[in-house]
């Protein structure tokens, strides 16, 4: 039984082409990019090239790209970096209730340090209303952070509209694009964003490397102080191989986007349709503005982790916002913010597709899931068949 991997929103396998691009930078071109001699200069060139590639793909300038250790660092740098740099101008920050914890917890920590925070609600499909952003903006608002697409339910926010509102007001706008980079076409000018975070391992690049776009003119206090790397905005010897891998993976994703997207949407819709046929099942998120690879449903009366374990026993790798998988008592903060009850939210299942998934796999999954759901319901004290 080979594994059917349906958790591409969690992470993706490194593509062989990407690994190949990285390999020379481990022990051949291993120089420190800050060094003046040949090995250092060649490593520096590789960084420059990677930076150009990423900038190009985002419609940005090379000096607007900062490489980080992943999406979490990028988002933390964006938020804390702007907050510290502009604290004398204002101390108010706006975000939404369904952000990834990398954003939410960074903002909540700043609140502890004396910043003021407004957390915007979302509707039952997970949308932030641009009007609510407009209303929340204050004279001392320095930063708004709204994610591009949600990692759990796949809802794609109206970032362009929110960005236009934030810009007109004169605050800075960050979007966490970790789930959309490599999946949707990103253009920082069209999106009206000042800062944008992404992470390589979400698009078949290596884990432990990400990037932050910072519009020219936006100041940042570094999260990591030290050497002069990344124009003094992020210290530390650069993960050259990782950065080369990020650029290569991003480039490949962009080149194949059209084709892959069609494939993903087909599988996604097949899954959504099949799962909706199970009684007492609710689809979470928007059906119109949804990531092409995201399926998220709640099966009433059952709990997420036991569902996942059963899927695993059948060779299917999926995910859940279940409390039991996250180590907290509360289920997904995203589903709760969308108005679901605790009980229903506990039974959520997220399946996220990738370029190598096949129709046969989806067919198999659609055979197994109803059996598992029925079995768990039969042992649930909440279910009266």
């Amino acid at each position, binding site marked *: 039984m080979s594994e059917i991997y349906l958790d591409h929103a969690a992470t993706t396998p490194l593509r062989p082409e990407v690994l190949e691009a990285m390999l020379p930078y481990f022990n051949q071109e291993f120089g420190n990019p800050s060094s003046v001699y040949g090995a250092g200069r060649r490593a520096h060139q590789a960084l420059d090239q990677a930076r150009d590639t990423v900038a190009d793909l985002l419609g940005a300038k090379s000096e607007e790209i900062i490489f980080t250790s992943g999406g979490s660092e990028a988002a933390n740098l964006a938020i804390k970096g702007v907050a510290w740099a502009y604290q004398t101008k204002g101390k108010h920050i706006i975000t939404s209730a369904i952000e990834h914890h990398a954003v939410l917890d960074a903002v909540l920590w700043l609140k502890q340090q004396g910043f003021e925070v407004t957390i915007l609600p979302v509707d039952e499909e997970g949308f932030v209303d641009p009007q609510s952003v407009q209303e929340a903006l204050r004279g001392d608002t320095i930063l708004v952070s709204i994610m591009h697409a949600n990692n759990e339910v796949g809802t794609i926010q109206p970032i362009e509209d929110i960005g236009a509102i934030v810009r007109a007001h004169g605050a800075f706008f960050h979007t966490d694009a970790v789930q959309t980079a490599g999946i949707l076409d990103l253009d920082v000018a069209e999106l009206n964003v000042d800062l944008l975070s992404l992470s390589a391992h979400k698009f078949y690049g290596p884990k432990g490397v990400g990037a932050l776009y910072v519009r020219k003119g936006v100041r940042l206090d570094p999260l990591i102080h030290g050497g002069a790397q990344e124009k003094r905005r992020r210290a530390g010897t650069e993960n050259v191989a990782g950065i080369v891998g990020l650029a290569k993976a991003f480039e490949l994703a962009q080149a194949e986007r059209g084709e892959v997207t069609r494939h993903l949407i087909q599988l996604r819709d097949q899954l959504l349709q099949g799962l909706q046929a199970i009684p007492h099942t609710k689809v979470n998120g928007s059906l119109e503005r949804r990531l092409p690879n995201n399926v998220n449903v709640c099966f009433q*009366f*059952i*709990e*997420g*982790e*036991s569902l996942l*374990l059963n899927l695993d*026993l059948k060779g299917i790798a999926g995910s859940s916002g*279940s*409390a*039991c998988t996250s*180590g907290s*008592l*509360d*289920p997904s903060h995203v589903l709760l913010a969308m108005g679901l*009850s*605790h*009980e229903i939210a*506990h039974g959520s299942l997220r399946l996220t597709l990738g370029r190598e998934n096949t129709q046969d796999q989806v067919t198999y999954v659609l055979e197994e899931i109803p059996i598992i759901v029925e079995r768990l319901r*039969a*042992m*649930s*004290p*909440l279910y009266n068949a």
Partner: protein
Amino acid sequence: MYSDKVMDHFTNPRNVGEIANADGVGEVGNARCGDIMKIWIKVEDGIIQDVKFKTFGCGAAIATSSVITEMAIGKTLDEAEEITNKSVAEELEGLPPLKMHCSNLAADALRAAIEDYRKKHPITA
């Protein structure tokens, strides 16, 4: 993550179901924290003759429910009341630390069922 014994009870849970006209029923947990266990017991001459359970919860919740049914059957009520969440975890050859807290409620559910039995069957000396 889980021991083989946990996975065994999770994949083949013993004594799932309800007991019609049970002598005692106990329920603990709530949907908010994601675990609900309900246990039915059949008692004869102070001895637990049968136990059945239904559980809404994670793998650990299901496995602890299952194993406690095996642990309880044949015991006197007094003996069964001595079963602790800790001894359930030990019977399962350990549980992940995160699960010790919120999902290991089976002993509580059993005690609740025994209490229910005692309330319905007061000892008339």
